[in-house]
């Protein structure tokens, strides 16, 4: 016990130092960007310096437009992710727990999974119009597959020794799922949720690039049409930041959940 206590006492300093190391590369990239922009290799229309992107941020934020784009994109991702994750948990659970369901469903699901995100867009527009629904559905499709795949695999690969203990101690059916299978698969399920969220952002941009009048994907395509490279870069930076932020939040919840049972 004393050993672990010592370790936790030293830990905060070290983890803080390790996190600080993570900031080095972005700063370096920023420096390279600044140098390249100033070197004359690229015209300012091709690669505006970071300062211009920052002022574009100020301009759009000042007009209130930017918050609108961010809010609508985040909303689409969160709703779509929630839908996709719930479906992924349900169907992944079914396929992971029942061999019959696995045999019946998994080839089809694998085939649908192979469809590229953009291929869905025309169909969704045709069926669901140009409102919020097709975008949310596309994000849900994106979030669904990683969650489905990790949940079904995790449940299939639960240590058979533990399942046998559950059976030997009279647990079967739902009680076996609740006391052995689900807790054993929890770490994998949580990382599947994070993957699903990340893929939700990917599919969001696919949706917004094609048919929208709001959101970060729209900002991207609109900036291309108006020749505002600074806004284009701003949209990309914002997508990276938002994706990282939501993943960090989910990762935080994951750590909390897993340390509670350690």
């Amino acid at each position, binding site marked *: 016990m004393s050993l672990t206590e010592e370790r936790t006492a030293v830990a905060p300093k070290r983890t803080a130092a390790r996190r600080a190391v993570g900031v080095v590369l972005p700063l370096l990239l920023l420096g390279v960007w600044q140098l390249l922009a100033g070197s004359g290799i690229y015209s300012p229309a091709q690669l505006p310096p970071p300062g211009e992107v920052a002022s574009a941020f100020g301009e759009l934020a000042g007009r209130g437009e930017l918050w609108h784009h961010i809010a609508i994109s985040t909303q689409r991702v969160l709703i779509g992710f929630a839908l996709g994750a719930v479906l992924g948990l349900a169907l992944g659970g079914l396929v992971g727990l029942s061999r019959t369901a696995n045999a019946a469903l998994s080839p089809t699901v694998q085939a649908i999974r192979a469809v590229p995100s953009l291929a869905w867009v025309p169909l969704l527009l045709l069926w669901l119009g140009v409102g919020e629904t097709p975008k949310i559905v596309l994000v849900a499709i994106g979030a669904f597959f990683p969650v489905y795949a990790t949940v079904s695999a995790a449940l299939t690969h639960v240590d058979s*020794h*533990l399942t*046998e*203990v559950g*059976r*030997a*101690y*009279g647990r*079967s059916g739902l009680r076996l799922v609740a*006391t*052995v299978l689900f*807790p*054993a698969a*929890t770490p994998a399920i949580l990382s599947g949720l994070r993957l699903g969220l990340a893929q939700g952002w990917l599919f969001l941009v696919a949706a917004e690039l094609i048919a929208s009048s709001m959101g970060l994907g729209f900002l991207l395509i609109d900036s291309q049409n108006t020749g505002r490279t600074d806004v284009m870069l701003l949209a990309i930076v914002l997508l990276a930041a938002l994706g990282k932020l939501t993943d960090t939040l989910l990762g935080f919840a994951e750590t909390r959940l897993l340390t509670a*049972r*350690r």
Partner: protein
Amino acid sequence: MREPAGLEFSGVGRAFTVAGRHRQVLAGIDLTVAPGEVIALLGPSGCGKSTLLRLAAGLDSPTAGAVSVDGRPVRGIEPRCAVVFQEPRLLPWRTLFRNVAYGLPRGVTGAPARQEVEHWLSVVGLDAFAQHRPRQLSGGMAQRAALARALARRPGVLLLDEPFAALDALTRLRMQDLLAEVQREAGTTVLLVTHDADEALHLADRIVLLGPSEDPAAGSSIRLVLPVPGARPRDRGDSTLAELRASLLSELGVNIHGRIQA
């Protein structure tokens, strides 16, 4: 404590079909275990000892004959039996307290459940570790917790599948003494699978030697039933036991002078 139960195997056989090939593991097993009796099932590895134990637990079912507990046939998981496996198989996400509580019979909840768990934890000497996680324990401690979990089920028959085989020599001796003590206190019937002749002689009322028949394709059957003289607890240095040990080992194909018989 539930009353110790009798256990009966009549004409029990078990065959497996692996890759289209029929393999007889056990055949013609007839054995009656009296309530409160301690039986050691001894035999070379692969002779079907564990299979026989799994049949009693209801984790597996015989292809011939029948197993009954107190005269009632075993169908499916047997609620009057509790199993301790070779590995502790504790649920890693549960505290020791909740692992032991996992063994409680259905319907035991609230204060009686807590008392029961605390009682068995103190019997195996782990009351100070109730809130620890399995990974924080040594192998011997984890196996003690697994024993407490089995006892919490208040079994009529305690089924032990080489429970001490993976422990170091000293811990194994301690665990044997603990088991003898617990058995005395609880009075439960015990079926102990072991490949350790000394362990069998120290703990059992009768030793059942399981081994292959003349025809290796016919499966294992009971070669010898040996009543162990003297009341438990026995002195490990007893000279009559030393003679029995020599004859047991020679039955198992080990020459005590260190040569292996053909």
